[in-house]
């Protein structure tokens, strides 16, 4: 096995462990992510609190574990949504051409021109207040998914256009393939590598976007943890020299993003 193969295997393993920790959070830790041990805010690691406590005395390890569940389950879901939208619209634009192509590309350009954060701020303000933290986090990621497609769309569109102009597609059309057969035998297999690559690229992007939103106080609502709002607790880097264990959320995020980058298919694999 090549070095890249070993690295990819390792990265899959690490991601698997992180995923499993998130899914089985209740088994991994016996604390609640919301319980405040107010006598020991900003506490150092000890037997009771493996990674110490945050500024409100909550067990940091527990919050990272539950935060993993939120960030690592919902970010791929949002990435999937964005990729599906980009795939459908990009494929349609590339294959149909004409006014459909123009309309879709214009919509994508318009969406790209919109400042994402202001749109998210406005959408959050429009949402009813009386919603649960779980609904709020799902809404955040769905919004990210719904707004995250335009950048991917242009790549899918370009690939679909290449496909439309290719000899084998022309041949299949000339043979009188039905539309569904063309779709499932020609379009989907040919676009799949690029859609997969876009999906894997989007996952860490959405994790980081949620982190940024939480840094602005607009992402996942307290007391539900996410990697984003955990990072918010370590905004002040000067504190990190005194309490380096508080960098743990950042460490997990960096490891995850790096692992996602390594498991991405290479250029040759996507072509």
């Amino acid at each position: 096995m090549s070095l890249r193969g070993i690295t990819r295997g390792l990265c899959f393993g690490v991601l698997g462990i992180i995923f499993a920790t998130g899914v089985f959070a209740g088994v991994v830790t016996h604390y609640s992510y919301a319980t405040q041990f107010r006598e020991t805010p900003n506490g150092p690691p000890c037997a009771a609190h493996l990674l110490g406590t945050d500024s409100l005395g909550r067990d940091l390890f527990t919050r990272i574990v539950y935060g993993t569940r939120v960030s690592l389950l919902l970010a791929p879901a949002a990435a999937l949504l964005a990729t599906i939208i980009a795939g459908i619209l990009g494929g349609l634009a590339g294959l149909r051409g004409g006014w459909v192509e123009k309309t879709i590309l214009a919509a994508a350009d318009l969406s790209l021109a919109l400042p994402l954060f202001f749109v998210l701020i406005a959408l959050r303000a429009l949402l009813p207040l009386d919603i649960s933290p779980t609904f709020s986090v799902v809404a955040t990621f769905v919004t990210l998914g719904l707004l995250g497609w335009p950048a991917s769309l242009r790549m899918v569109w370009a690939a679909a256009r290449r496909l439309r102009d290719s000899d084998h597609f022309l041949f299949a059309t000339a043979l009188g393939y039905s539309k569904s057969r063309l779709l499932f035998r020609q379009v989907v297999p040919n676009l799949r590598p690029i859609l997969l690559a876009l999906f894997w690229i989007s996952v860490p992007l959405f994790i980081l976007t949620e982190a940024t939103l939480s840094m602005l106080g607009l992402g996942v609502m307290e007391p539900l943890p996410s990697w984003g709002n955990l990072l918010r607790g370590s905004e002040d880097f000067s504190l990190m020299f005194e309490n380096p264990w508080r960098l743990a959320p950042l460490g997990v995020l960096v490891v995850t993003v790096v692992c996602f980058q390594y498991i991405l298919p290479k250029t040759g694999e996507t072509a």
Partner: protein
Amino acid sequence: MIRRSVLLLALASGFFSCFITGAHAQSGTELHFCLRGEPKTFNPLLVDDDASENVRYLTGGVLIRVNRQTQALEPALAESWKVSQNGRSITFHLRAGLGFSDGTPFTSNDVAYTMRLLMDPQMHSATSDAFRSGDGKLNVQTPSPDVVTITFPVPIGGLERLFDQVAILSARSPKKEMATLGAYFVAEYKAGSYVLLRRNPNYWKRDAQGNHLPYIETVRLDIQRNRDIELMRFRRGELQLINRLDAEQFDRLEKENAAAARNAGVGLDSEFLWFNQVPSSPLPDYKKKWFQTTEFRRALSLAINRADLARVVFFGYATPAYGPVSPSNHFWFNTSLPAPRYDPQNALAELAKAGFRLENGGLSDSTGHRVEFTLITNSANAVRQKMATMIQQDLAQIGVNLKLVTLDFPSLIERMTKTFDYDACLLGLVNTDLDPNGQMTVWLSSGEDHQWNPNQKTPATAWEAEIDRLMREQASSADEKLRKAKFDRVQQIVAEQQPFIYLVNENALSAVSAEVSGAAPVALNPQAFWNIDTLRLGPSKQLGATK
């Protein structure tokens, strides 16, 4: 090519500004600190933001000054004054032979000009609001260059104290509002960058030895919004003062340099929450009923552990709040108010009185509705979000399901003032005025800052009607004892009814470099430089180190 030239120019200007900054820092005659925003105006009558307020304090000459340390009134441009028995007029005897920073002589005509301008409705001066307690015109008489009598249409409570905010303008100077009577005048201003103040050569004050004040030649105010950068620059020695520090920054600084971290004790600012009691709000009727029930509000107040908020969120640099007046406001604080209590058992007893019951860990009202509501606060304020999270856990102990939502400030204000589509809100109040007249719009039921139910045509409750009456009576009385008695009663009603649930009063925290001598930070704004005219920049690093 153009881009390259701009880059070179930027680099050059950066180099020269560094050079100039270095030269200033070495001179030992320039005090350097930050404004947290762009001053919106240099006209002292139009000030309504923090940055302009600080510039006004440093440059404006006033007739009477409130001593920020003793909270007593002191003569400034006026040697003496007398308020008439009916509280409608005040006569000032001015110091003779004074002049503005540009040399224009100061006379009673300048006071008359300033007061007329201040009270002109076209000016829309926020400072003038405190003087408007009734309809009618202002009358100003200047029998001599050193005497001026100002008569208001109705009596004004605490009239003389209001003049601390009125910086006198020159009626004749060609420099208009840039000619000042205070310790400094604005010498340079670069938008977005800095304000440079230079010592007023004609400033009236002398020290005990007869030396001209202020001691410091220039004050450079850098415009810096980011508090972390401000602290970093202070640590590097680029700044000599930070007027206000938050608790976390202060805690950090104190560990590094205890002499520089100055804690002036409990401050005037408060953090509080309130429930939406607006009858026309789009809330369901059962929620409106909860929020309008006194026992409900009292119970939730009892269930909040304020001591934990002060200790955990504010690192111990805050005090559980009694009510609308901080204990640091020596005259107006009602000392007979009960200390804030944390008592979840009593909270449940209060709730039971109003028909609420605790079942399976959840609180329900008499009609079976589960008690759950949303608390909104402004996003990007980590301190308030921490407070809200702690309150969430406290209320969970009495079966209340509290949800938290942070909103950007414009959305928050829209919900608070226009749509009234919210359950409860957590915010803070920066209090700059010691006198209760500064809070009229908060306490009058018709006021727009009466947040729990603003702009009422007639008071919705008997206790609000009583507050209206007491506030109006104290505002139009010249008898300080009577005013105090009436405002004590207002504080008592607020403690009983809990329309605002006061949480903590944050300490007044600031940072002063060892290079500055004479600094004695206080609770009142401006905390760290209230005595700017007697501050010195010493060559010795030891000078400012004493607390």
